[in-house]
Protein backbone atom coordinates (compact mmCIF):
# COMPACT_ATOMS: atom_id res chain seq x y z
CA UNK A 1 0.00 0.00 0.00
CA UNK A 2 2.75 2.42 0.99
CA UNK A 3 4.68 1.49 -2.14
CA UNK A 4 1.72 2.43 -4.34
CA UNK A 5 1.55 5.85 -2.70
CA UNK A 6 5.30 6.43 -2.79
CA UNK A 7 5.44 7.23 -6.52
CA UNK A 8 2.77 9.95 -6.62
CA UNK A 9 3.89 11.49 -3.32
CA UNK A 10 7.46 11.72 -4.60
CA UNK A 11 6.24 13.29 -7.85
CA UNK A 12 4.20 15.89 -6.00
CA UNK A 13 7.16 16.68 -3.80
CA UNK A 14 9.42 17.06 -6.86
CA UNK A 15 6.79 19.23 -8.53
CA UNK A 16 6.72 21.63 -5.61
CA UNK A 17 10.52 21.61 -5.46
CA UNK A 18 10.69 22.68 -9.10
CA UNK A 19 8.00 25.33 -8.56
CA UNK A 20 9.79 26.60 -5.47
CA UNK A 21 13.10 26.82 -7.30
CA UNK A 22 11.48 28.65 -10.20
CA UNK A 23 9.75 31.18 -7.95
CA UNK A 24 12.95 31.71 -5.97
CA UNK A 25 14.82 32.31 -9.22
CA UNK A 26 12.27 34.82 -10.53
CA UNK A 27 14.12 37.93 -9.38
CA UNK A 28 17.58 36.47 -10.06
CA UNK A 29 19.58 37.19 -13.18
CA UNK A 30 19.94 36.20 -15.99
CA UNK A 31 16.39 36.84 -17.20
CA UNK A 32 16.63 35.86 -20.90
CA UNK A 33 14.14 38.53 -22.15
CA UNK A 34 14.33 37.17 -25.68
CA UNK A 35 13.10 33.78 -24.56
CA UNK A 36 10.25 35.42 -22.62
CA UNK A 37 9.16 37.43 -25.67
CA UNK A 38 9.46 34.38 -27.88
CA UNK A 39 7.28 32.35 -25.52
CA UNK A 40 4.74 35.17 -25.27
CA UNK A 41 4.50 35.10 -29.03
CA UNK A 42 4.04 31.33 -29.23
CA UNK A 43 1.61 31.28 -26.33
CA UNK A 44 -0.36 34.45 -26.76
CA UNK A 45 -0.45 35.13 -30.45
CA UNK A 46 -0.51 31.45 -31.28
CA UNK A 47 -3.50 30.74 -29.04
CA UNK A 48 -5.45 33.82 -30.08
CA UNK A 49 -7.51 32.32 -32.96
CA UNK A 50 -8.78 29.36 -30.97
CA UNK A 51 -9.42 31.51 -27.89
CA UNK A 52 -11.44 33.93 -30.03
CA UNK A 53 -13.53 31.11 -31.45
CA UNK A 54 -14.17 29.43 -28.12
CA UNK A 55 -14.98 32.73 -26.40
CA UNK A 56 -17.36 33.87 -29.12
CA UNK A 57 -19.35 30.67 -29.31
CA UNK A 58 -19.61 30.22 -25.56
CA UNK A 59 -21.18 33.71 -25.45
CA UNK A 60 -23.59 32.73 -28.22
CA UNK A 61 -24.61 29.46 -26.56
CA UNK A 62 -24.99 31.05 -23.16
CA UNK A 63 -27.27 33.79 -24.46
CA UNK A 64 -29.43 31.20 -26.24
CA UNK A 65 -29.69 28.90 -23.23
CA UNK A 66 -30.28 31.64 -20.68
CA UNK A 67 -32.97 33.29 -22.78
CA UNK A 68 -35.05 30.12 -22.60
CA UNK A 69 -34.89 29.98 -18.83
CA UNK A 70 -35.38 33.73 -18.50
CA UNK A 71 -38.43 33.72 -20.78
CA UNK A 72 -40.37 31.53 -18.32
CA UNK A 73 -39.97 34.38 -15.78
CA UNK A 74 -40.55 37.06 -18.39
CA UNK A 75 -37.06 38.38 -17.78
CA UNK A 76 -35.42 38.10 -21.20
CA UNK A 77 -34.06 41.61 -20.73
CA UNK A 78 -31.71 40.22 -18.06
CA UNK A 79 -29.72 38.31 -20.71
CA UNK A 80 -26.94 40.93 -20.72
CA UNK A 81 -26.15 40.78 -17.00
CA UNK A 82 -26.32 37.01 -16.84
CA UNK A 83 -24.08 36.41 -19.84
CA UNK A 84 -21.62 39.00 -18.51
CA UNK A 85 -21.41 37.55 -15.02
CA UNK A 86 -21.06 33.90 -16.04
CA UNK A 87 -18.49 34.78 -18.66
CA UNK A 88 -16.29 37.01 -16.54
CA UNK A 89 -16.46 34.90 -13.40
CA UNK A 90 -16.36 31.35 -14.72
CA UNK A 91 -16.61 30.53 -18.39
CA UNK A 92 -13.98 32.96 -19.64
CA UNK A 93 -11.21 31.93 -17.24
CA UNK A 94 -11.93 28.20 -17.25
CA UNK A 95 -12.54 27.72 -20.97
CA UNK A 96 -9.56 29.84 -21.98
CA UNK A 97 -7.31 28.03 -19.53
CA UNK A 98 -8.47 24.62 -20.68
CA UNK A 99 -7.87 25.54 -24.31
CA UNK A 100 -4.44 26.92 -23.49
CA UNK A 101 -3.69 23.87 -21.33
CA UNK A 102 -4.48 21.58 -24.24
CA UNK A 103 -2.35 23.61 -26.57
CA UNK A 104 0.55 24.87 -24.48
CA UNK A 105 0.98 22.44 -21.60
CA UNK A 106 1.28 19.83 -24.35
CA UNK A 107 3.61 22.03 -26.38
CA UNK A 108 5.87 22.78 -23.44
CA UNK A 109 5.98 19.16 -22.27
CA UNK A 110 6.80 17.77 -25.69
CA UNK A 111 9.45 20.38 -26.40
CA UNK A 112 11.24 19.98 -23.07
CA UNK A 113 10.68 16.23 -23.22
CA UNK A 114 12.42 15.92 -26.58
CA UNK A 115 15.24 18.08 -25.29
CA UNK A 116 15.55 15.81 -22.27
CA UNK A 117 15.72 12.55 -24.19
CA UNK A 118 18.24 13.92 -26.71
CA UNK A 119 20.53 15.13 -23.87
CA UNK A 120 19.98 18.79 -24.79
CA UNK A 121 19.02 19.57 -21.19
CA UNK A 122 22.28 17.99 -20.01
CA UNK A 123 24.16 19.93 -22.68
CA UNK A 124 22.55 23.13 -21.47
CA UNK A 125 23.71 22.46 -17.94
CA UNK A 126 27.17 21.53 -19.14
CA UNK A 127 27.45 24.75 -21.16
CA UNK A 128 26.65 27.10 -18.33
CA UNK A 129 22.88 27.57 -18.28
CA UNK A 130 20.42 26.49 -15.64
CA UNK A 131 17.39 24.88 -17.34
CA UNK A 132 15.16 26.38 -14.64
CA UNK A 133 16.34 29.87 -15.57
CA UNK A 134 16.57 29.34 -19.30
CA UNK A 135 13.52 27.16 -19.96
CA UNK A 136 11.10 27.13 -17.05
CA UNK A 137 11.19 30.76 -15.95
CA UNK A 138 10.48 32.31 -19.38
CA UNK A 139 7.57 29.93 -19.87
CA UNK A 140 6.11 30.71 -16.46
CA UNK A 141 6.41 34.47 -16.94
CA UNK A 142 5.06 34.39 -20.48
CA UNK A 143 2.03 32.27 -19.52
CA UNK A 144 1.31 34.34 -16.42
CA UNK A 145 1.22 37.50 -18.53
CA UNK A 146 -0.59 36.15 -21.58
CA UNK A 147 -3.32 34.00 -20.04
CA UNK A 148 -5.10 36.87 -18.20
CA UNK A 149 -4.90 38.92 -21.42
CA UNK A 150 -6.32 36.04 -23.46
CA UNK A 151 -9.08 35.62 -20.87
CA UNK A 152 -10.02 39.29 -21.09
CA UNK A 153 -10.19 38.99 -24.87
CA UNK A 154 -12.29 35.82 -24.64
CA UNK A 155 -14.66 37.58 -22.20
CA UNK A 156 -15.07 40.44 -24.62
CA UNK A 157 -15.77 38.37 -27.74
CA UNK A 158 -18.09 36.22 -25.61
CA UNK A 159 -20.08 39.30 -24.70
CA UNK A 160 -20.08 40.20 -28.36
CA UNK A 161 -21.46 36.76 -29.24
CA UNK A 162 -24.13 37.18 -26.58
CA UNK A 163 -24.98 40.57 -28.02
CA UNK A 164 -25.52 39.18 -31.51
CA UNK A 165 -28.04 36.69 -30.12
CA UNK A 166 -29.68 39.26 -27.84
CA UNK A 167 -30.06 41.74 -30.69
CA UNK A 168 -30.78 39.37 -33.56
CA UNK A 169 -32.81 36.60 -31.92
CA UNK A 170 -34.13 37.98 -28.65
CA UNK A 171 -34.83 41.46 -30.08
CA UNK A 172 -33.21 43.37 -27.23
CA UNK A 173 -31.88 46.87 -27.95
CA UNK A 174 -28.16 47.52 -28.03
CA UNK A 175 -28.23 49.72 -24.96
CA UNK A 176 -30.42 47.29 -23.02
CA UNK A 177 -27.84 44.56 -23.47
CA UNK A 178 -24.63 46.49 -22.96
CA UNK A 179 -25.88 48.67 -20.10
CA UNK A 180 -27.17 45.60 -18.32
CA UNK A 181 -23.89 43.79 -18.83
CA UNK A 182 -21.84 46.81 -17.77
CA UNK A 183 -23.82 47.41 -14.62
CA UNK A 184 -23.82 43.76 -13.57
CA UNK A 185 -20.05 43.42 -13.40
CA UNK A 186 -18.43 44.50 -10.15
CA UNK A 187 -14.78 44.92 -9.23
CA UNK A 188 -15.02 41.66 -7.34
CA UNK A 189 -15.94 39.87 -10.59
CA UNK A 190 -13.08 41.41 -12.53
CA UNK A 191 -10.64 40.52 -9.76
CA UNK A 192 -11.88 36.96 -9.78
CA UNK A 193 -11.82 36.85 -13.57
CA UNK A 194 -8.15 37.87 -13.69
CA UNK A 195 -6.77 36.10 -10.61
CA UNK A 196 -8.09 32.77 -11.85
CA UNK A 197 -6.22 32.74 -15.19
CA UNK A 198 -3.13 34.01 -13.43
CA UNK A 199 -3.15 31.00 -11.12
CA UNK A 200 -4.05 28.58 -13.91
CA UNK A 201 -1.16 30.00 -15.92
CA UNK A 202 1.20 28.86 -13.18
CA UNK A 203 -0.44 25.42 -13.20
CA UNK A 204 -0.21 25.08 -17.00
CA UNK A 205 3.39 26.20 -17.34
CA UNK A 206 4.73 24.41 -14.28
CA UNK A 207 2.96 21.12 -15.02
CA UNK A 208 4.11 21.33 -18.65
CA UNK A 209 7.71 22.00 -17.64
CA UNK A 210 7.68 19.40 -14.89
CA UNK A 211 6.31 16.63 -17.11
CA UNK A 212 8.75 17.59 -19.87
CA UNK A 213 11.83 17.74 -17.67
CA UNK A 214 11.28 14.36 -16.10
CA UNK A 215 10.69 12.56 -19.38
CA UNK A 216 12.54 9.27 -19.72
CA UNK A 217 12.65 6.56 -22.31
CA UNK A 218 12.91 7.99 -25.81
CA UNK A 219 10.16 9.25 -28.09
CA UNK A 220 7.54 7.09 -26.42
CA UNK A 221 8.31 8.87 -23.17
CA UNK A 222 7.76 12.22 -24.86
CA UNK A 223 4.27 11.17 -25.93
CA UNK A 224 3.49 10.00 -22.43
CA UNK A 225 4.76 13.22 -20.87
CA UNK A 226 2.65 15.28 -23.26
CA UNK A 227 -0.58 13.44 -22.49
CA UNK A 228 0.14 13.58 -18.80
CA UNK A 229 0.77 17.32 -18.89
CA UNK A 230 -2.62 17.99 -20.53
CA UNK A 231 -4.60 15.68 -18.25
CA UNK A 232 -2.93 16.78 -15.01
CA UNK A 233 -3.11 20.50 -15.73
CA UNK A 234 -6.78 20.30 -16.84
CA UNK A 235 -7.80 18.42 -13.72
CA UNK A 236 -5.94 20.88 -11.51
CA UNK A 237 -7.67 23.79 -13.23
CA UNK A 238 -11.14 22.39 -12.53
CA UNK A 239 -10.33 21.49 -8.93
CA UNK A 240 -8.69 24.85 -8.16
CA UNK A 241 -11.56 26.64 -9.87
CA UNK A 242 -14.01 25.13 -7.37
CA UNK A 243 -11.84 26.31 -4.47
CA UNK A 244 -11.28 29.81 -5.79
CA UNK A 245 -14.97 30.24 -6.60
CA UNK A 246 -15.84 29.11 -3.09
CA UNK A 247 -13.47 31.72 -1.63
CA UNK A 248 -14.96 34.52 -3.72
CA UNK A 249 -18.52 33.45 -2.99
CA UNK A 250 -17.95 33.70 0.76
CA UNK A 251 -16.01 36.96 0.46
Amino acid at each position, binding site marked *: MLDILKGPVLSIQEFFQLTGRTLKNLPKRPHYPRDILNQMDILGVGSLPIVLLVGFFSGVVMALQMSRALRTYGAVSQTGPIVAITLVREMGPVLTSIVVAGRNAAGIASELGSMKVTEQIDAMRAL*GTDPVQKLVKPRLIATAIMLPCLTAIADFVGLLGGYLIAYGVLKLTTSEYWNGAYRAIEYNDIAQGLIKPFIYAMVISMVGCFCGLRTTGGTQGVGLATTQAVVVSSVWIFVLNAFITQIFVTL
Partner: protein
Amino acid sequence: MRFERVTVDFGGQPALDDVSFDIRNGESRVVLGESGSGKTVILKTAIGLLHPSKGRVFLFNEDITGRREQEMFSIRARVGMLFQESALFDSLTIEENVSYPLVNQKSIQLDEEQTHQRVEEALTFVELGHTLEKFPSELSGGMRRRVGIARANVTEPALVLYDSPTAGLDPITANNIMALLVKERDLRNATTVIVTQRFQDGQIMAKYRFDRDSGELRAASSDGGSVSGLKFMVMREGKLVFEGTREELGLSTDPYISKFVLRH
Protein backbone atom coordinates in the same frame (compact mmCIF):
# COMPACT_ATOMS: atom_id res chain seq x y z
CA MET B 1 39.81 14.57 -12.55
CA ARG B 2 39.63 11.98 -9.82
CA PHE B 3 37.03 9.40 -8.72
CA GLU B 4 37.29 7.90 -5.24
CA ARG B 5 35.21 4.75 -4.81
CA VAL B 6 32.30 6.25 -6.74
CA THR B 7 28.99 4.41 -6.95
CA VAL B 8 26.10 5.73 -9.04
CA ASP B 9 22.69 4.17 -8.56
CA PHE B 10 19.46 4.46 -10.51
CA GLY B 11 17.71 1.77 -8.49
CA GLY B 12 18.50 -1.81 -9.47
CA GLN B 13 22.02 -2.68 -10.49
CA PRO B 14 24.40 0.24 -9.96
CA ALA B 15 25.49 2.01 -13.18
CA LEU B 16 28.91 2.64 -11.60
CA ASP B 17 30.14 0.34 -8.88
CA ASP B 18 32.99 1.41 -6.62
CA VAL B 19 35.04 3.08 -9.38
CA SER B 20 38.33 4.84 -8.56
CA PHE B 21 40.82 6.45 -10.94
CA ASP B 22 42.87 9.57 -11.35
CA ILE B 23 43.53 11.53 -14.53
CA ARG B 24 46.23 14.16 -14.15
CA ASN B 25 46.52 17.44 -15.90
CA GLY B 26 47.71 17.02 -19.50
CA GLU B 27 47.16 13.26 -19.61
CA SER B 28 44.72 11.56 -21.90
CA ARG B 29 42.52 8.61 -21.25
CA VAL B 30 40.61 6.19 -23.44
CA VAL B 31 37.66 4.45 -21.79
CA LEU B 32 36.52 1.25 -23.49
CA GLY B 33 33.55 -0.91 -22.64
CA GLU B 34 30.52 -2.48 -24.20
CA SER B 35 27.10 -0.87 -24.41
CA GLY B 36 25.58 -0.19 -21.01
CA SER B 37 28.84 -0.62 -19.11
CA GLY B 38 28.62 2.86 -17.58
CA LYS B 39 30.91 4.92 -19.84
CA THR B 40 28.46 7.77 -20.33
CA VAL B 41 27.64 7.74 -16.62
CA ILE B 42 31.35 8.29 -15.80
CA LEU B 43 31.48 11.45 -17.91
CA LYS B 44 28.19 12.83 -16.64
CA THR B 45 29.16 12.18 -13.05
CA ALA B 46 32.50 13.88 -13.61
CA ILE B 47 30.86 17.22 -14.36
CA GLY B 48 28.05 16.88 -11.84
CA LEU B 49 25.20 16.11 -14.25
CA LEU B 50 24.66 12.93 -12.25
CA HIS B 51 25.27 12.58 -8.54
CA PRO B 52 27.07 9.64 -6.94
CA SER B 53 25.30 7.80 -4.14
CA LYS B 54 28.67 6.88 -2.62
CA GLY B 55 32.24 8.09 -2.99
CA ARG B 56 33.75 11.41 -3.95
CA VAL B 57 34.41 13.16 -7.27
CA PHE B 58 37.21 15.70 -7.75
CA LEU B 59 37.56 18.07 -10.68
CA PHE B 60 40.65 20.31 -10.93
CA ASN B 61 41.46 19.17 -7.38
CA GLU B 62 38.16 20.53 -6.07
CA ASP B 63 35.71 18.22 -4.38
CA ILE B 64 32.48 18.61 -6.34
CA THR B 65 30.53 15.83 -4.61
CA GLY B 66 27.08 17.03 -3.62
CA ARG B 67 27.62 20.56 -4.88
CA ARG B 68 24.52 22.52 -5.74
CA GLU B 69 23.78 23.18 -9.41
CA GLN B 70 24.44 26.92 -9.11
CA GLU B 71 27.90 26.28 -7.67
CA MET B 72 28.81 23.92 -10.50
CA PHE B 73 28.72 26.41 -13.36
CA SER B 74 32.05 28.07 -12.69
CA ILE B 75 33.89 24.76 -12.70
CA ARG B 76 31.94 23.34 -15.66
CA ALA B 77 33.08 26.37 -17.64
CA ARG B 78 36.56 24.83 -17.61
CA VAL B 79 35.35 21.57 -19.15
CA GLY B 80 34.19 20.86 -22.69
CA MET B 81 31.94 17.93 -23.44
CA LEU B 82 30.78 16.22 -26.59
CA PHE B 83 27.59 14.27 -25.92
CA GLN B 84 26.93 10.87 -27.41
CA GLU B 85 24.27 12.04 -29.88
CA SER B 86 25.92 15.46 -30.18
CA ALA B 87 22.99 17.07 -28.28
CA LEU B 88 22.95 20.17 -30.48
CA PHE B 89 20.09 22.56 -29.72
CA ASP B 90 17.82 22.01 -32.69
CA SER B 91 16.00 25.33 -32.34
CA LEU B 92 19.30 27.21 -32.78
CA THR B 93 21.53 27.63 -35.84
CA ILE B 94 24.99 26.08 -35.98
CA GLU B 95 26.55 29.45 -35.19
CA GLU B 96 24.27 29.95 -32.17
CA ASN B 97 25.00 26.42 -31.02
CA VAL B 98 28.75 26.90 -31.06
CA SER B 99 28.57 30.37 -29.54
CA TYR B 100 26.27 29.12 -26.76
CA PRO B 101 29.01 28.49 -24.18
CA LEU B 102 30.73 31.76 -25.07
CA VAL B 103 27.53 33.74 -24.61
CA ASN B 104 26.25 31.95 -21.53
CA GLN B 105 29.29 31.33 -19.38
CA LYS B 106 29.76 34.15 -16.91
CA SER B 107 33.53 33.82 -16.84
CA ILE B 108 33.71 34.65 -20.55
CA GLN B 109 33.27 38.27 -21.57
CA LEU B 110 33.51 38.69 -25.31
CA ASP B 111 31.77 41.21 -27.51
CA GLU B 112 29.72 40.13 -30.49
CA GLU B 113 32.56 40.58 -32.96
CA GLN B 114 35.00 38.47 -30.93
CA THR B 115 32.37 35.79 -30.34
CA HIS B 116 31.65 35.53 -34.03
CA GLN B 117 35.35 35.27 -34.78
CA ARG B 118 35.90 32.51 -32.22
CA VAL B 119 32.91 30.57 -33.56
CA GLU B 120 34.17 30.85 -37.09
CA GLU B 121 37.64 29.68 -36.05
CA ALA B 122 36.22 26.71 -34.17
CA LEU B 123 34.01 25.71 -37.09
CA THR B 124 36.80 26.16 -39.62
CA PHE B 125 38.94 23.90 -37.45
CA VAL B 126 36.39 21.10 -37.91
CA GLU B 127 36.06 22.02 -41.60
CA LEU B 128 32.51 23.31 -41.30
CA GLY B 129 33.12 27.03 -41.78
CA HIS B 130 30.36 27.26 -44.37
CA THR B 131 27.46 26.01 -42.24
CA LEU B 132 27.00 28.91 -39.82
CA GLU B 133 23.43 29.72 -40.80
CA LYS B 134 22.20 26.13 -41.06
CA PHE B 135 20.18 24.22 -38.48
CA PRO B 136 21.39 20.94 -36.95
CA SER B 137 18.62 19.00 -38.71
CA GLU B 138 20.13 19.99 -42.07
CA LEU B 139 23.49 18.34 -41.29
CA SER B 140 24.59 14.70 -41.48
CA GLY B 141 25.45 12.72 -38.36
CA GLY B 142 29.19 13.12 -38.89
CA MET B 143 28.82 16.87 -39.43
CA ARG B 144 26.74 17.20 -36.27
CA ARG B 145 29.44 15.35 -34.38
CA ARG B 146 32.01 17.85 -35.67
CA VAL B 147 29.81 20.77 -34.64
CA GLY B 148 29.61 19.15 -31.20
CA ILE B 149 33.41 18.98 -31.13
CA ALA B 150 33.64 22.64 -32.09
CA ARG B 151 31.16 23.55 -29.35
CA ALA B 152 33.11 21.53 -26.77
CA ASN B 153 36.37 23.24 -27.67
CA VAL B 154 35.32 26.79 -28.49
CA THR B 155 36.00 28.00 -24.95
CA GLU B 156 39.43 26.31 -25.02
CA PRO B 157 38.74 24.30 -21.87
CA ALA B 158 41.55 22.62 -19.96
CA LEU B 159 39.65 19.33 -19.88
CA VAL B 160 37.63 17.88 -22.77
CA LEU B 161 35.34 14.87 -22.51
CA TYR B 162 34.21 13.06 -25.65
CA ASP B 163 31.34 10.60 -25.39
CA SER B 164 31.54 8.05 -28.23
CA PRO B 165 32.78 10.49 -30.88
CA THR B 166 32.76 7.85 -33.60
CA ALA B 167 29.65 5.82 -32.76
CA GLY B 168 27.42 5.18 -35.76
CA LEU B 169 29.82 6.62 -38.32
CA ASP B 170 31.50 4.89 -41.23
CA PRO B 171 35.19 4.01 -40.69
CA ILE B 172 36.55 6.82 -42.85
CA THR B 173 34.50 9.52 -41.19
CA ALA B 174 35.33 7.98 -37.82
CA ASN B 175 39.07 8.19 -38.51
CA ASN B 176 38.72 11.80 -39.64
CA ILE B 177 36.97 12.64 -36.40
CA MET B 178 39.69 10.93 -34.37
CA ALA B 179 42.33 12.87 -36.30
CA LEU B 180 40.54 16.06 -35.31
CA LEU B 181 40.56 15.06 -31.67
CA VAL B 182 44.27 14.30 -31.74
CA LYS B 183 44.90 17.66 -33.38
CA GLU B 184 42.76 19.42 -30.79
CA ARG B 185 44.55 17.60 -27.99
CA ASP B 186 48.08 18.38 -29.19
CA LEU B 187 47.50 21.98 -30.22
CA ARG B 188 46.13 22.99 -26.85
CA ASN B 189 47.64 20.36 -24.57
CA ALA B 190 44.18 19.76 -23.17
CA THR B 191 43.48 16.86 -20.86
CA THR B 192 41.39 14.56 -23.03
CA VAL B 193 39.04 11.75 -22.05
CA ILE B 194 37.52 9.65 -24.83
CA VAL B 195 34.80 7.11 -24.28
CA THR B 196 34.37 4.62 -27.10
CA GLN B 197 33.49 1.10 -28.11
CA ARG B 198 36.08 1.09 -30.90
CA PHE B 199 39.59 0.07 -29.98
CA GLN B 200 40.90 1.72 -33.18
CA ASP B 201 39.98 5.10 -31.70
CA GLY B 202 42.30 4.37 -28.82
CA GLN B 203 45.00 3.24 -31.25
CA ILE B 204 44.86 6.55 -33.07
CA MET B 205 44.99 8.47 -29.80
CA ALA B 206 48.00 6.42 -28.71
CA LYS B 207 49.99 6.15 -31.92
CA TYR B 208 49.73 9.62 -33.40
CA ARG B 209 50.71 13.12 -32.56
CA PHE B 210 49.80 16.26 -34.40
CA ASP B 211 52.83 17.83 -36.00
CA ARG B 212 52.55 21.61 -36.02
CA ASP B 213 55.16 22.19 -38.69
CA SER B 214 53.68 19.95 -41.35
CA GLY B 215 50.09 20.30 -40.16
CA GLU B 216 49.62 16.55 -40.30
CA LEU B 217 49.43 13.60 -37.99
CA ARG B 218 52.74 11.78 -37.43
CA ALA B 219 53.58 8.57 -35.60
CA ALA B 220 54.31 9.45 -31.97
CA SER B 221 57.58 7.53 -32.05
CA SER B 222 59.48 5.64 -34.72
CA ASP B 223 59.33 2.26 -32.93
CA GLY B 224 55.54 2.24 -32.70
CA GLY B 225 55.47 3.28 -29.04
CA SER B 226 52.64 5.25 -27.47
CA VAL B 227 52.06 8.88 -26.67
CA SER B 228 53.18 9.44 -23.10
CA GLY B 229 50.56 10.09 -20.46
CA LEU B 230 47.94 8.06 -22.27
CA LYS B 231 46.20 5.27 -20.45
CA PHE B 232 43.33 2.94 -21.21
CA MET B 233 40.48 1.93 -18.95
CA VAL B 234 38.00 -0.89 -19.58
CA MET B 235 34.53 -0.85 -18.03
CA ARG B 236 32.31 -3.85 -17.51
CA GLU B 237 28.83 -3.64 -16.00
CA GLY B 238 29.69 -0.54 -14.00
CA LYS B 239 33.01 -1.88 -12.75
CA LEU B 240 36.46 -0.69 -13.74
CA VAL B 241 38.16 -3.95 -14.79
CA PHE B 242 41.37 -2.61 -16.36
CA GLU B 243 43.54 0.46 -16.11
CA GLY B 244 46.93 0.71 -17.80
CA THR B 245 48.95 1.53 -20.90
CA ARG B 246 48.34 0.26 -24.40
CA GLU B 247 51.15 -2.25 -24.01
CA GLU B 248 49.65 -3.62 -20.78
CA LEU B 249 46.26 -3.76 -22.45
CA GLY B 250 47.75 -5.83 -25.26
CA LEU B 251 49.23 -8.30 -22.77
CA SER B 252 46.00 -8.86 -20.87
CA THR B 253 44.68 -12.42 -21.02
CA ASP B 254 41.23 -11.65 -19.66
CA PRO B 255 38.76 -12.65 -22.42
CA TYR B 256 36.49 -9.60 -21.89
CA ILE B 257 39.39 -7.16 -21.97
CA SER B 258 41.18 -8.68 -24.94
CA LYS B 259 37.89 -8.54 -26.85
CA PHE B 260 38.61 -4.83 -27.24
CA VAL B 261 42.13 -5.36 -28.53
CA LEU B 262 42.62 -6.01 -32.20
CA ARG B 263 45.63 -8.16 -32.82
CA HIS B 264 47.28 -7.73 -36.16
